C-alpha cells in the first residue's frame, strides 16, 4: 500500500520538465497548422475530387502495405529472435537499412531492382508483362519498403522480451514449431505486433520520397496525400495546409480508434 502511494506521488521535475517540453515540441507545429488553416474555404477545398482520390489512395495503399509488412515482417522478426544462425547481427543491421536510407534513394534502389529494366523487374516485364513503376502496386511496394523495418524491430523486441518458458512448455507437451508459433508465441506478442503495425501504417501513410521516385505522381493512380501536399505547396500553400490537416485528422482518428480496441482486448 505504502509503495503504491509512493509511486502515485508527484512526478519528479527532472522528468516532468523534459516530458512537457517534448510534448510541446511535437504538438506545437500541429497547432501552427490549425491556426493558419483557411477554415472558411475548408469545405469547398475538401470536396475536390482530387483530394478525395488522394485520400482514398493513401488509405488503401497504406493498409495494403501494412498487410504485406505483417505477412513478411512477422516471420522475419521471428527468425531474428528465435533462430540462431551465423550473421544474425548483420541481418538485423540490414533490416534497418530502409530507416537510414533517404527515401528518395530507396526509390531509386527499388527502380534498379523492380523497375522495367531492373534486375528482377526486367524479368517480370518480359515473362509476365508486369511493371511496377507508375502503378498503384508500385506505391504499395515503395511504402512497404520504408515501413517494414518499423514492424520487424517492434515485433522482434516483443519476441525477445517474451517469456520463453511458455514456448518450452508447449514443446515438452509435443507441439511442433508451427503450432507453437501461432498458438503460443503470436498471442504472447500480439501487443508488439499491433504496435508495429500501427507504426508501419503511419509511416506508410506519410511516405513521400520513395513513392514519388518509384511510382511517380499521377492523380487517382499514384498520387497519395503527401504527394498532393508537396505539389500544392508549390502554388497554393493554403491548400497544402488543408491537405496536411486532413491526412493528420484521418490518421489520428484511425489510430485512436484502433488503440482503444487493442487496449481493451489485451
Amino acid at each position, binding site marked *: 500500500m505504502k509503495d503504491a502511494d509512493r509511486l502515485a506521488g508527484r512526478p519528479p521535475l527532472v522528468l516532468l520538465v523534459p516530458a512537457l517540453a517534448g510534448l510541446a515540441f511535437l504538438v506545437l*507545429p*500541429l497547432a*501552427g*497548422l490549425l*491556426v*493558419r488553416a483557411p477554415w472558411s474555404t475548408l469545405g469547398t477545398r475538401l470536396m475536390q475530387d482530387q483530394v478525395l482520390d488522394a485520400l482514398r489512395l493513401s488509405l488503401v495503399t497504406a493498409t495494403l502495405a501494412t498487410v504485406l509488412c505483417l505477412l513478411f515482417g512477422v516471420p522475419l522478426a521471428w527468425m531474428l529472435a528465435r533462430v540462431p544462425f551465423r550473421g544474425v547481427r548483420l541481418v538485423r543491421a540490414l533490416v534497418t537499412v530502409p530507416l537510414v536510407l*533517404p*527515401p*528518395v534513394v530507396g526509390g*531509386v534502389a527499388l*527502380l*534498379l531492382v523492380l*523497375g*522495367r*529494366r531492373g534486375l528482377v523487374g526486367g524479368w517480370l516485364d518480359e515473362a509476365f508483362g508486369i511493371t511496377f*513503376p*507508375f502503378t498503384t502496386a508500385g506505391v504499395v511496394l515503395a511504402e512497404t519498403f520504408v515501413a517494414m523495418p518499423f514492424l520487424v524491430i517492434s515485433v522482434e523486441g516483443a519476441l525477445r522480451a517474451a517469456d520463453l518458458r511458455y514456448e518450452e512448455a508447449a514443446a515438452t507437451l509435443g507441439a511442433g514449431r508451427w503450432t507453437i508459433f501461432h498458438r503460443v508465441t503470436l498471442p504472447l506478442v500480439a501487443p508488439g505486433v499491433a504496435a508495429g503495425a500501427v507504426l508501419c501504417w503511419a509511416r506508410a501513410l*506519410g*511516405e*513521400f*520520397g520513395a513513392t*514519388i*521516385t518509384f*511510382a*511517380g*505522381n*499521377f*492523380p487517382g493512380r*499514384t498520387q497519395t*496525400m*503527401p*504527394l498532393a*501536399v*508537396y*505539389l*500544392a*505547396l*508549390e*502554388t497554393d*500553400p*493554403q491548400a*497544402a*495546409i488543408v*491537405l*496536411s490537416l486532413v*491526412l*493528420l485528422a484521418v490518421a489520428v482518428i484511425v489510430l485512436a480508434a484502433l488503440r482503444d480496441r487493442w487496449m481493451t482486448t489485451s
Partner: protein
Amino acid sequence: MRTWIAIAAAALLVTGAAGCGEAGDGASGSGGGDGGGTLTVFAAASLTEAFTSLGATFEGTRPGVRVRFNFGASSTLAQQITQGAPADVFASASPATMKTVTDAGDAAGRPQVFTRNRLVIAVPKDNPGRVAAVGDLSRPGLKVVLCAAQVPCGAAAAKALGAAKVEVEPVSREKDVKAVLTKVGLGEADAGLVYRTDVKAAGDRVTGIEFPQAAQAINDYPIVAVARAPQGALAKEFIQLVLGPQGRTVLGRAGFEAP
C-alpha cells in the same frame, strides 16, 4: 510570414524530411564575413554545373573570397529568401518565382535576364519507344513523364505541347525536372520533356531531341542582388561576371542560350 512557418511544419510533418536537406542547410547558414568574406548565392538547380564553375573563377580572381551556393527549386529558394535567409544573390529559373522576391521587397534593384533555357524531348539512350518527333508523344502505350503543372517545367511543357497541338497523357507528373530525367535515364519512361541543359548534364544516359515548338516556351533566368545582402558589393561583382562574356561562355557550354 507565419503562414510559411506553418507550411514548413506541414511539409516536415507529412512528407518527412525527404528533400529538405539542402533547404535546411541554406536557411541556417550565416553570412560569414571574415577576411575577404563569403558570398552566398541562391541559384536554381539547373544552374548547378555552370555556377559552380563560375564560382571557382570568382574565387580565383579574388583572394580570400569564398562563394557558397544553395542550389534548389527556384520556388523553394524564393521562399527561403522572403523568410530572411542570408542570401546575397538570387538566380531563378523563372520570372514568376523571381517576382515573389521582388514583390516582397527583397531584391536590390531590378532583376536582369542572364540566360535562357528551352525544352527538349529526352529519351533513353537506346530510344525504346522510337521517338523521333514531338508528335510521337501522343502515341498510345508510350510511357511519357512530364513535370507537374505546379512547377515551372510543367507549365512550360504544357505551353510547348499546346503550341505543337499534341495531346499527351503522361504516366506521371513529376515534382521537378530532375525527377523526369531520372525516370528517362533509368529507362522507366520512354520519353520526357526536360530542359536542354539537363540532357547535357546527364551525359550519355539520355538523348535530347529538339522540337521547334519549344521556342514558344522558352524559360528566362533572372538574377538579382538580394536587398540587405551581407555582401552587397561582392554580389554586384558576381552578377557582372555572370552577365559578362565569361558567364555567357560557361552557360553556353552547359546548354543555355544567350538572352
